């Protein structure tokens, strides 16, 4: 069996040498990794270790990286604008439930569908939006509720449904479990597994370690902007460097 920590052959997303500084602070420092199609790659790390900054730099929302290469499906994409990346199939979500508050749940998703080649007549778009909401398990009775009136978990589902509606091949989830209850985290875990069954590769930032190690095929740990471990989750969480980064002491 080949070592799991090696970058998979035929990677769908390969990132190399990504660096982003804010003034003197190197938030992301020369980060490289690759993902196989259908893989779930977890990203862990203490607060301020550069996880979200890495997502922001890869997707160019809301800023660009200073240096680095992003290869998506064999094509360099680091210079493409954000909406082109989304159209190619690289979608992301945010840690906060980022939705259009005054639009209904279904209209939120329709806005996403209208940007894709799949979009067509309004009736067809409504159908596709309802499909995306069904996939994430959003209750059908609340489709026409304004997003602002929905509880956090449902707003997160609307956001994920919007990302899925773009028909992505790689989905970047930024701390989807933050501010959720244990029951909701269970539903989220099932959803992440279901998305993988549908063939999506998922890059998952998460603080809830138990969720992260439970669904990830491989785990990458960042500390002070650098990759300090990458490999099978069970091994990575025992890595002395990882333990030190999290607890501040050597075991």
């Amino acid at each position, binding site marked *: 069996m080949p070592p799991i920590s090696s970058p998979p052959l035929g990677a769908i997303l390969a990132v190399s040498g990504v660096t982003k500084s804010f003034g003197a602070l190197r938030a992301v420092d020369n980060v490289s990794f690759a993902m196989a199609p259908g893989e779930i790659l977890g990203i862990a790390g203490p607060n301020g270790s550069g996880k979200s900054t890495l997502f922001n730099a890869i*997707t160019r*929302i*809301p*800023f660009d990286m200073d240096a680095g290469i992003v290869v998506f499906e064999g094509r360099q994409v680091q210079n493409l*604008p*954000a*909406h082109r990346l*989304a*159209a190619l199939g690289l*979608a*992301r*979500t*945010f840690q906060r439930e*980022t*939705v*259009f*508050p*005054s*639009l209904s749940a279904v*209209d*939120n998703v*329709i*806005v*996403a569908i*209208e*940007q*894709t080649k799949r*979009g067509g007549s309004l009736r067809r778009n409504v159908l596709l939006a309802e499909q995306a909401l069904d996939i994430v398990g959003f209750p059908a009775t609340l489709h026409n509720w304004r997003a*602002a009136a929905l509880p956090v978990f449902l707003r997160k589902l609307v*956001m994920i449904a*919007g*990302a899925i*509606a*773009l028909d992505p091949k790689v989905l970047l989830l930024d701390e989807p479990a933050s501010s959720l209850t244990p029951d909701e985290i269970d539903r989220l875990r099932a959803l992440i597994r279901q998305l993988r069954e549908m063939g999506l590769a998922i890059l998952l930032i998460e603080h809830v370690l138990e969720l992260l190690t439970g669904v990830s095929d491989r785990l990458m740990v960042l500390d002070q902007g650098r990759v300090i471990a990458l490999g099978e989750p069970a091994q990575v969480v025992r890595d002395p460097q990882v333990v030190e980064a999290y607890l501040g002491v050597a075991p």
Partner: protein
Amino acid sequence: MMSFDTFVAVASGGLALGAIYALMAAGLAAVWTTLGIFNFAHGAFIALGAYIGWQIADAEAAGLGLAAGVVGAFVGLFVIGILFHLALVRPFERRPDIVTACVITTLAGAAICESAINLIWGPRSKQLGQLARGEVDLGVFRLPVSDLVLIAVVGATLGTLGWFLSRTRTGRAMRAVSQNREAAELMGLDVPRLYALAFGLSAAIAGLAGIFVGGLRFMTPTMGTDPLMKALIVVILGGIARFTSPIYAAILVGFVESFSNYYVGLYWTPAVLFAMMIVVLFLKPSGLFGHHQRTL
């Protein structure tokens, strides 16, 4: 006590003024809600619209008639608005101090536009023709046809804009991007294009307003300053909960201005309007029809 005829004349004048302010405020609010900046060149866009319209319409210039002037001002200002956005707003888009930066760049843009008008058309005032002549007799009272045409054109323009924002793909995308830029990017929207489009549309509507202002008053390079101030009052007074809220406020401001001109006097009218605005800000800081959430 004013006679009934005077009352009708003052009221219809107020409605016509309100219609122009509604047009201006809608354009100003479109940029404010989508890009989150205040465009101080909006008044200069009005002047440019009037002068471009004059160049096309007036017998001393191209002489193609007022209808061609309206189309020319609309299209011309759409293009100018997009160029303006690319040159003076886009470069600062990702900066945290974009609001302050754009106060300066749009003020500079206004000065450039006014100087350009001075260079091209000279400082001597001009006037655009009325949209229509004569009065229509409604039995009980008579109304100037030009006021009716003005109100109809503004109504049609704002109605089309409302339809565009709520019923078309691009319009929905513009409403979406005005609510949350990051969500828009997440959903795959081309945010820079939508921003440019919002700016272009806003300028085009200002150009249209310029034609009307140029028909009511003499045209000078700084003719947009006063309507800009009124539009600012309208936007603050009405709030910007939705696309329609500045429209009601604009009609209110038009009426108040018209009656205040008659009763209190021309020079006191700005004071009356600002006093009204201050009282509203005290009682309801988000504006009469406002909401804390900004959205188109």
